[in-house]
């Protein structure tokens, strides 16, 4: 957990390499028009993973209930109604379950287990209509992601971000120097949940359908897998993870669902055992070796 981006001495200027994801996204838009719906899904999950990275990677709160906010956002986008909360992992898991139960039972509002269909999305700002090829959806998601990334990055490089790292590393000391630890965590949690909710809203708007699975525990687990795969606490881990995971899923999971889950499980175990920094952590290590300096 040493290679965290941000922190007290970090240079807040945007480096050239940080434009890479955006270049890739634009190139993909023109080069792979038949994969735009998958692309939009990936963009949304990047935003979702980014929100999780903020609390898991930076604030050090472990949560299995993040799908509550994602799902809430998804349903809010569908039905326009809101409420949220905080707590320890089990309480959060409970909160996610409560929302799942509400969504499952409130059949008239959400369609229950059949899902909520017939979500009609108006043109963005009355100007850009969602087309069947998913071009508008893709660009729209990209724009929202850019906004989310900018917000998260800004926050991580701010004194607030530094204090979060402090809370993660030693909350007792943060208390001792007079930092309002509790309120810092409440604030970052709220922001993270909001971003996750925005990502959930995007899912509904681009799919024009909400299913109960957006709230499930498996979906929270999958998200955590994506983030860990990319690398925790380094912003761009949240970019790499969903790209690799969702593309692999698109190609492999449909043919071999059994092997797919077996594969994720094995990979997760291996990452925890041998490569705790995820893909970016491995790359970092390789770069250090190449350059021959620490």
């Amino acid at each position, binding site marked *: 957990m040493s290679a965290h981006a941000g922190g007290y001495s970090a240079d807040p200027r945007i480096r050239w390499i940080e434009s890479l994801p955006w270049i890739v996204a634009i190139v993909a838009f023109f080069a792979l028009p038949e994969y735009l719906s998958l692309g939009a899904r990936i963009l949304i999950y990047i935003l979702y993973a980014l929100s999780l990275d903020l609390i898991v990677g930076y604030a050090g709160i*472990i949560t299995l209930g993040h799908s509550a906010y994602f799902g809430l956002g998804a349903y809010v986008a569908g039905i326009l109604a809101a409420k949220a909360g905080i707590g320890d992992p089990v309480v959060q898991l409970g909160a996610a379950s409560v929302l799942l139960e509400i969504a499952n039972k409130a059949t008239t509002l959400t369609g229950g287990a059949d899902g909520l269909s017939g979500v009609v999305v108006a043109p963005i700002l009355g100007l850009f209509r969602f087309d069947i090829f998913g071009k508008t959806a893709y660009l729209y998601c990209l724009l929202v992601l850019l906004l989310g990334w900018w917000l998260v990055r800004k926050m991580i490089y701010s004194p607030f971000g530094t204090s979060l790292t402090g809370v993660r590393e030693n909350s007792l000391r943060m208390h001792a120097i007079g930092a309002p630890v509790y309120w810092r965590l409440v604030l970052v949690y709220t922001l993270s949940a909001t971003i996750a909710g925005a990502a959930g809203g995007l899912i509904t708007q681009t799919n024009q359908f909400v299913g109960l699975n957006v709230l499930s525990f498996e979906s929270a687990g999958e998200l955590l897998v994506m983030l860990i795969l990319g690398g925790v606490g380094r912003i761009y881990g949240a970019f790499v993870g969903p790209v690799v995971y969702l593309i692999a899923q698109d190609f492999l999971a449909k043919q071999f669902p059994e092997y797919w889950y077996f594969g994720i*499980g094995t990979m997760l175990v291996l990452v925890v055992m041998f490569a705790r920094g995820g893909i970016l952590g491995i790359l970092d290590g390789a770069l250090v070796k190449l350059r021959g300096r620490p």
Partner: protein
Amino acid sequence: MEAFFASLVSVAFHGAALGMILYVISVGLSVTMGLMGFANLAHGVFAMAGGYVLTTAISRFGVPFPLALVLAFAFVAAASVVLERLLYSRLYAASDLEQVLFTIGLIFIAVAVARFIYGTLQQPVALPDYLKGQFPLLGRDFPAYRVFIIVFSAVMVALLWFGVERTRWGAMVRATVDNRAMAQSVGINTKRLFTLTFALGSGLAGLGGGLGAEIIAIQPSYPFENLVYFLVVVSVGGLGSLRGPFVAALLIGIADTACKYWLPQYGAFPIYVATIAILLWRPSGLFGRHA
């Protein structure tokens, strides 16, 4: 009034059976989390494995039911020793996040393997004739199988409590839960104690999974679907204790049955709300020691 009383008795009875199963499965989780500080989300995997061992032993090899229960215990306990030595023990010092991820990984693997071998359908349990039918008690009829579950689990619980409270091994376990470093320095082999306790807890989960195969259906998504229940039992009861999870399991078993009986339209909703309320009120559980 008579009808209401009858349904009250029925709910209490079925709830007690479910609660007993939940306890036998979850007590091992309480001990591993309390003793080793290990967040083992994959505990349900052991219960599922026990269920599969039992149903396979009965339906494919014609093993009698009692022996199949013993097999479920022994097989899962043995497998868990291998897992503990090979994988779990490397992560005792790791952060919560890593333990959570690792055990979620194990769940994924187990779900995939179960689906590959057995398919997605629920495994039927072929009960022996003496456990089918009704058992007359105080002028009422109760399903014999659930009576057996309650009595059998009660015996297991009594044995377990005797073991932990009255034997030398139990004293060692309690000492290690209280203060691991001190226990180690007075000569307790905590490593071996961990392995043994882990095996016992997992074996009990396997036994519970097998015993409750008729109540909590054995199918591949078992570890995911029931994880919340096991965690609720442990966290509401309090980590590292035997009594807390027992009360919590009975409470949840009865409350869950009551909700499904009287308020089916709300599903498991009241249970989750109650859990959140209890944890907000007492973060270390009903009987947990304050950190």
